[in-house]
């Protein structure tokens, strides 16, 4: 449901500024939202460096945006208090990219009924329909699942729904704020003529016989087989879980043949990296022995290495048997490469082997940890229950734990707790500016079609409890004593999160629970570098850059950058105005230029006219003199002639 007019479009890479006014958590969430655009669309974002138009994301009152590129130079988009949810940011940026709300489409009355008497007084105008002279639904069907759709309770004056979907199954679907829907992406990619995305590389569920162009290696003793079930397990693949007849394939390496040292190698097609870092995700099922092993390599085709350079990225051993397990492997590859899966049969007897399915590869950051909850459905059994994750460590060594608070009927909450850990004596307390991102994984086989539910919180070291103690101080100081299942005692800090992470209904939708397994992906990253000046969200690379610019004060919103080691001011400019000068101290505009041009033309014209007049006058005077001289000469001659 897009705004009509090419002039409302942005370039594929949108310049932005994260203003200092933004909350720290909001800054991190906005950068995470950009990663979702980079994975699923061809829209990218870059720090503003003087382009005519850019989006200034600031902490205004509420969450709002303009629709489309309005060529204002600095186009504001507000992410205020409580707007720091990733889907809210995606929603507001979709407005900026040129999209209206879904239920304002010209054809909406075919799909929803507006209950006008239940709408807040004077808010009825928020439910207007706009005909196709103003907005274009791009030939895409009405989308109840759009991240741009109002919820059923929008602008309600009581407790009754203001929007009733004509297909009742969608009543609790509208208003989702998890991620882009498939149709959201279809429209956006169509509007911006997207042919590829920045960070997606490959997704394979082995449903097609060509197995995504993967190849069997000849340097092994066995092949991986494309099968739909294995006697010793699994009974079905991970993609469809046996739901669909005559489909549901995966790759299997049979280790029950008993040949010790049996090896089967499967290589991906050649892949071409752009960003230099990758995340491999796949599901693995072990029905062989506990010693069967899977090694992950990359084969990088660097100069002078015809066959590529094989690098062992991860050895996966002691693979749990009897269920599909989710694995992540991080790469840092810069040249074209293949991913290599090497299955190794262990020495012990096996009645099955190794199986892999639902591979996804993207140039994104892998989650730091995975909380795998098995037999999840029984936890939804109808009573309030708290579930705690195992302990994890952040990259710098902060120990933490996640708790999930499952209410009997309505919502599921999720909270981040710092806990006592082995490194506490070496760490900084209160814990400063760590952003914890908790993602409930939608286990769709294709990473591009997932609508994972994500929330982030950030540890503000200045935050205090009611008793004045620091919220993020050492858990052994401000926490409570708790015990792990094995009886070991530890201190658990207060939880920080939300009691309304997801509703039961949404949790049971899509593929959040699959094979009775649920996954929460966890990342805890240091975002203290975002505490710097507005326009530079990435850490400043070297101190010289900082020194060079720190002595320079660019005026009128200019940004200091370093060119060839010298600080330079990038001056802001709009459609018909700009700043110039060493420090952007001088303002220029097309109007001034026109005035100058016209006045100089007039001046030149006047000067030319004067010169012309003077030269005509002189010429005429000279000829007059000459003429009179000639006449005199003639007289004289005549006098003598006769």
């Amino acid at each position, binding site marked *: 449901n897009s*705004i009509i007019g090419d002039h409302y479009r942005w370039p594929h890479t949108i310049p932005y500024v994260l203003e200092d006014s933004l909350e720290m958590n909001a800054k991190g969430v906005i950068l995470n939202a950009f990663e979702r655009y980079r994975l699923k669309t061809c829209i990218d974002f870059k720090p503003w460096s003087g382009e005519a138009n850019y989006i200034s994301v600031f902490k205004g*009152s*509420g*969450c*709002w*945006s*303009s*629709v*489309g590129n*309005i060529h*204002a130079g600095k186009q*504001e988009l507000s992410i*205020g*208090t*409580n*707007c720091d949810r990733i889907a*809210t940011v995606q*929603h*507001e940026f979709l*407005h900026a990219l040129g999209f*209206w*709300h879904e239920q*304002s489409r010209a054809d909406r009355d075919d799909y929803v009924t507006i209950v006008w008497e239940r709408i*807040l007084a*004077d*808010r009825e105008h*928020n439910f207007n329909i*706009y005909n196709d002279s*103003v907005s274009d639904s791009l030939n895409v069907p009405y989308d109840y699942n759009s991240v741009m759709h*109002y*919820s059923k*309770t*929008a*602008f309600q004056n009581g407790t009754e729904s203001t929007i009733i979907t004509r297909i009742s199954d969608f009543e609790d679907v509208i*208003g989702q*704020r998890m991620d882009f829907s498939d149709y959201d992406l279809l429209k956006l990619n169509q509007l911006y003529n997207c042919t590829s995305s920045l960070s997606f590389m490959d997704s394979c569920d082995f449903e097609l016989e060509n197995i995504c162009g993967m190849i069997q290696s000849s340097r092994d003793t066995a092949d991986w087989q494309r099968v739909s079930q294995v006697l010793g397990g699994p009974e079905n693949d991970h993609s469809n879980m046996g739901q669909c007849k005559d489909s549901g394939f995966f790759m299997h390496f049979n280790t029950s043949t008993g040949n010790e040292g049996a090896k089967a190698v499967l290589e991906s097609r050649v892949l071409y990296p752009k960003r230099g870092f990758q995340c491999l995700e796949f599901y693995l099922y072990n029905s062989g022995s506990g010693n069967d092993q899977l090694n992950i390599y990359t084969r990088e085709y660097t100069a002078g290495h015809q066959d590529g350079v094989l690098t062992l990225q991860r050895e996966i051993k002691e693979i749990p048997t009897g269920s599909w397990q989710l694995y992540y492997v991080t790469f840092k590859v810069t040249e074209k490469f293949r991913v290599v899966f090497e299955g190794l049969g262990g020495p012990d007897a096996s009645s099955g082997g190794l199986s892999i399915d639902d591979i996804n590869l993207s140039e994104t950051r892998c989650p730091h940890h995975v909380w795998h909850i098995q037999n999840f459905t029984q936890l939804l059994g109808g009573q*309030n*229950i*708290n579930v705690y994750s195992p302990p994890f460590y952040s990259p710098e060594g902060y120990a933490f734990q996640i*708790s999930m*608070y499952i209410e009997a009927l309505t*919502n599921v*909450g999720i*909270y981040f707790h710092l806990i006592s850990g082995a490194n506490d004596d070496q760490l900084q307390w209160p814990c400063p500016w760590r952003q914890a991102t908790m993602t409930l994984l939608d286990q769709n086989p294709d990473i591009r079609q997932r609508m994972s539910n994500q929330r982030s*919180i950030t540890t503000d070291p200045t935050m205090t409890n009611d008793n004045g103690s620091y*919220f993020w101080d050492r858990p052994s100081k401000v926490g*409570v004593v708790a015990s792990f299942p094995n009886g070991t005692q530890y201190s*658990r800090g*207060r*939880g*920080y*999160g*939300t*009691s*309304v992470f997801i*509703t039961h209904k949404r949790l049971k939708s899509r593929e959040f629970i699959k094979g009775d397994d649920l996954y929460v992906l966890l990342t805890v990253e240091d975002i203290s570098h975002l505490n710097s000046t507005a326009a530079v969200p990435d850490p400043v690379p070297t101190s010289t850059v900082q020194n060079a610019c720190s002595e320079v004060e660019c005026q009128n919103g200019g940004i200091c950058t370093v060119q060839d080691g010298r600080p330079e001011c990038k001056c802001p400019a709009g459609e018909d105005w700009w700043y110039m000068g060493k420090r952007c101290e001088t303002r220029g505009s097309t109007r001034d230029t026109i005035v100058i041009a016209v006045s100089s033309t007039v001046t030149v014209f006047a000067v030319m006219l004067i010169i012309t007049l003077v030269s005509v006058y002189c010429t005429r005077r000279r000829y007059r003199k000459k003429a009179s001289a000639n006449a005199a000469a003639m007289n004289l001659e005549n006098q003598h002639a006769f």
Partner: protein
Amino acid sequence: APEKFVKDIDGGLDQDIFDINEDLGLDLFEGDIRLEAHGR
């Protein structure tokens, strides 16, 4: 028994964009659009 040794950033409310803006007294176009001359 589920302990509530937690701090809820949403205060237990699942507020959508429009609820947040309404509570702030913003009467933006369709709840969260700052309208330019779009012909709407």
